[in-house]
């Protein structure tokens, strides 16, 4: 083993990744070679030195201020708790686009249907069909509108990366196992 090879293996060696003849061969080279020995020392000392950097303390009152903010946010999004669990809707994330298109189709269809169904009694003095007042809406419309309101107010939906965090946790066990 030459020095170039040995130096490249120093980190995995220090991390305990070798065993048997490979480990012994490397240990023997380090023992005999001042240059590799110094390199190894520097790696060990620099790694140990990291202990000397401790971040400052988080200031007192952090939790109290967090709780104030969480509660005020919680009060603002109180509506979301009317849904017993969003997970039925959130869990199959692949279905989100499909759900969204269904919603669009349903809304469009209901507007179209409404437009068709309104008898042409007067030549429309006011708004176009898109701005049908809520009072005229069917039960299905108001349900969709209400749900949209709830979804828009759901903070967790604003944080889409949050969903990936959940996904990641679900995948974690199997992934960790397969990497072993």
């Amino acid at each position, binding site marked *: 083993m030459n020095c170039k090879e040995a130096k490249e293996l120093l980190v995995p060696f220090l991390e305990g990744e070798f065993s048997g003849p490979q480990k012994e061969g490397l240990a023997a080279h380090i023992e005999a070679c001042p240059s590799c020995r110094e390199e190894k020392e520097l790696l060990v000392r620099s790694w140990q030195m990291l202990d000397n950097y401790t971040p*400052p303390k988080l200031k007192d009152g952090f939790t109290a201020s967090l709780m104030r903010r969480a509660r005020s946010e919680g009060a603002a999004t109180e509506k979301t708790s009317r849904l017993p669990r969003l997970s039925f809707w959130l869990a199959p994330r692949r279905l989100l686009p499909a759900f969204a298109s269904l919603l669009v189709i349903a809304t469009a269809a209901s507007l179209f249907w409404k437009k068709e169904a309104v008898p042409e009694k007067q030549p429309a003095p006011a708004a176009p069909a898109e701005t049908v007042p809520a009072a005229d809406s069917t039960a299905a419309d108001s349900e969709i509108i209400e749900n949209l309101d709830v979804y828009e107010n759901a903070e967790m939906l604003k944080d889409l990366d949050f969903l990936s965090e959940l996904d990641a946790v*679900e995948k974690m066990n199997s992934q960790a196992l397969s990497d072993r």
Partner: protein
Amino acid sequence: MDRMDFIDEDIELMLRFQSGDEACFERLAELHKDRVFNMACRFLGDYQEAEDTTQEVFLKIYRAKNIYRPQAKFTTWLYIICKNTCLKALDKKHPGTVSLDGIIELEEDAAPMQAADPSSPSPVDSMVDSEAASVIKAAIDSLPPSQRMAVILCRYERLSYEEAAAVMLCSVKAVKSMLHRARVGLKEKLAAYFKK
């Protein structure tokens, strides 16, 4: 108290919070705020950003009240949220240098967040109170984000390679490789300090 007790306690607190006991969320924040703050501080290198990030991490957990399911260690989930929030904060500071999809996609040659030269202290160096600490901080700051995260998780948070891989959404092999390069990089930055 062994490790299992911690796991059980965290998950139990989260479930009790889920059923309406806010004091349990408060307890979770108390238990883990330093862990989250230290990680954010080491990654972002800035006290105020780290504090904001810590608050954001716990607010995300608060918002997850209704969708949380206890399928993994609570701390793993916490680290994942913390990592993502840190990346978001870094991206805000240096737009385009990180991918928010997963740390493995981070640019290896992304610009370090500040000059690694400890002789030109920036305001964030007031965070540390000794020469050694400021040299180490500068060395860590100079690492590419992915290597920096690997060092934080494996060296400071003492996660196993498997746990770190789960947090970083990459393979164990990738974690090892990031860590190896980080060790070499840190050695090069810190060697001068020993040789003084």
